[in-house]
């Protein structure tokens, strides 16, 4: 039986409906953007406009924004398998024709879609506020260099990393809270590299950003296969493999 986007769509649709009615998910999706829009905006408006400080302020502000695609999906994905197990829905789900690759890609897409919408919306709001309230020097600096490119490129790529780490952790966990903590922790390493670039510790350039983005893209694609292999029906149900 071949890969079916109908089955993927069924799970994605179900997940999105479930998110909408889950107060915890709604609160997470609302609170994270509020926090990570407020802090960089204040930072930007109150920023010193001397040449060296501008770059640092912008780097720090945009780094805050990249925390959204890392934390939001990792919290949601950490729940994706262990949550199904806890509410007793995993066994009926696994007893359908759905294949492991379909299951994990569906869970990933269901987390990626709201993450991208929120992360890009927050970035848009940030740019709008900057255009209205920030010093022209800062506004001009935002659009020079690779800041916008880094935001656009790394938002889905960091989210991809966080999603696969979250699903992998969730597949092996027996407790939602542990899965969420490990998921968030595991999703941070690539953000550290982006942070070094944003804060000019590693010399930032469009070439470096694209190279790192390409590496992350390759990793995300490989991670789909690796996580799908980890997704073993028997292990998920009886917590051990014979």
């Amino acid at each position, binding site marked *: *039986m071949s890969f079916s986007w109908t*089955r993927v769509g*069924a799970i994605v649709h*179900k997940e999105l409906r479930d998110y909408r009615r889950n107060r915890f998910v709604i609160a997470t999706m609302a609170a994270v953007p509020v926090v990570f829009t407020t802090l960089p905006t204040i930072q930007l408006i109150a920023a010193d406009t001397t040449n060296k400080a501008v770059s640092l302020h912008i780097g720090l502000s945009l780094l805050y924004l990249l925390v959204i695609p890392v934390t939001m999906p990792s919290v949601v994905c950490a729940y994706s398998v262990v949550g199904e197990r806890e509410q007793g829905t995993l066994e*009926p789900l696994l007893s359908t024709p759905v294949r492991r690759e379909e299951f994990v890609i569906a869970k990933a897409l269901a987390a990626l879609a709201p993450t991208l919408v929120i992360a890009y919306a927050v970035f848009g709001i940030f740019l709008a506020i900057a255009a209205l309230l920030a010093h022209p020097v800062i506004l001009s600096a935002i659009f020079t260099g690779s800041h916008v490119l880094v935001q656009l490129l790394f938002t889905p790529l960091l989210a991809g990393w966080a999603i696969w780490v979250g699903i992998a952790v969730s597949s092996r966990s027996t407790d939602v809270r542990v899965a969420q903590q490990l998921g968030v922790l595991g999703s941070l390493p690539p953000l550290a590299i982006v942070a070094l670039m944003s804060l000019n510790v590693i010399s930032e350039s469009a070439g470096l950003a694209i190279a790192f983005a390409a590496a992350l893209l390759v990793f995300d694609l490989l991670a789909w296969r690796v996580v799908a292999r980890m997704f073993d029906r028997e292990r998920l*149900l009886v917590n051990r493999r014979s």
Partner: protein
Amino acid sequence: MTDMEARHSVPDRTQGGEAAIIVEHLTKRFGDRVAFNDVSFEVGAGEVFGFLGPNGAGKTTTVRTLVTLIAPSTGTATVAGIPLLPENGSAIRSRISLMPESPGLYLRLTVTENLQCFAGLYGLDDVPGRIGRALRAVNLEDRARDLCGSLSKGLRQRVALARALLNDPAVLFLDEPTSGLDPVAIREVHDLIESLRKRGVTIFLTTHRLEEAERLCDRVAILNTTLRMIGRPDELRARLFRRSLDVRLRAPLGDPRTLFGAVSDVEQWEQTSSGYVLTVANPDRAAPVLARALVGAGADILSLGESHHSLEDVYLELIDEDVEAKSR
């Protein structure tokens, strides 16, 4: 046709009828622990097959193996006409359904939304029509828009059954479908299973409720890691228990040995707290002879009839044998 007639009209599937499930020497081990060992049986198309056993006997693991959730350690099986092989998992699962012990519904979704999700997972066409038919089959049409979280446990079980019917399965696996339900909800689930039997659905029913198995199943298998016995409930009784007569008298006999010894059909007898149990080859022939002998001896007969062994007696006899064997 009454339910009982319907049940007895099912042919003996082990006598060459079409098989929905064929299991041959199937074993599952988790490390050193054996979940079930060398299990072989067949389930015929349209049959309601009961799978009984105590907790930890391997019933759920057997079901999970047959629905391709768990890989067998050794042995072979065919489910819905498809060999049980890793590469056939998705194909087998598309032709069967499982209703696990817990209904496993998405509680923040409505009944219809739950069914829509599973219709998509089975890749079904005419989704509204199928959902409508499944809900009609379990009498839940009027609750279609309710959130599953607002339903009682019995209603959730019915939704789970509707979900299992969506794909018109060739084999429906029901794992403890009445576990934790109140008597009214149990009766509702039993009625639903009866209606599925009439529709010719092959049902593999895992339960430890013996009265449920006796009422619903054409044949039963008793598992306690190994398959202890398989057959129709009356066959199991006949195989395990010799036929006997229960005699209750107003007062004990003065010389039962001489009296029972004079009745040729009586093979052996024992005194119980309420009277006597006599093992006989033919109760119909022995009962009148015995009654005359008792009256002739001046005994006041309160009752005299053939002993009836329930499926529970069969089950307990087998499980007790296992307990005794383990303790030796």
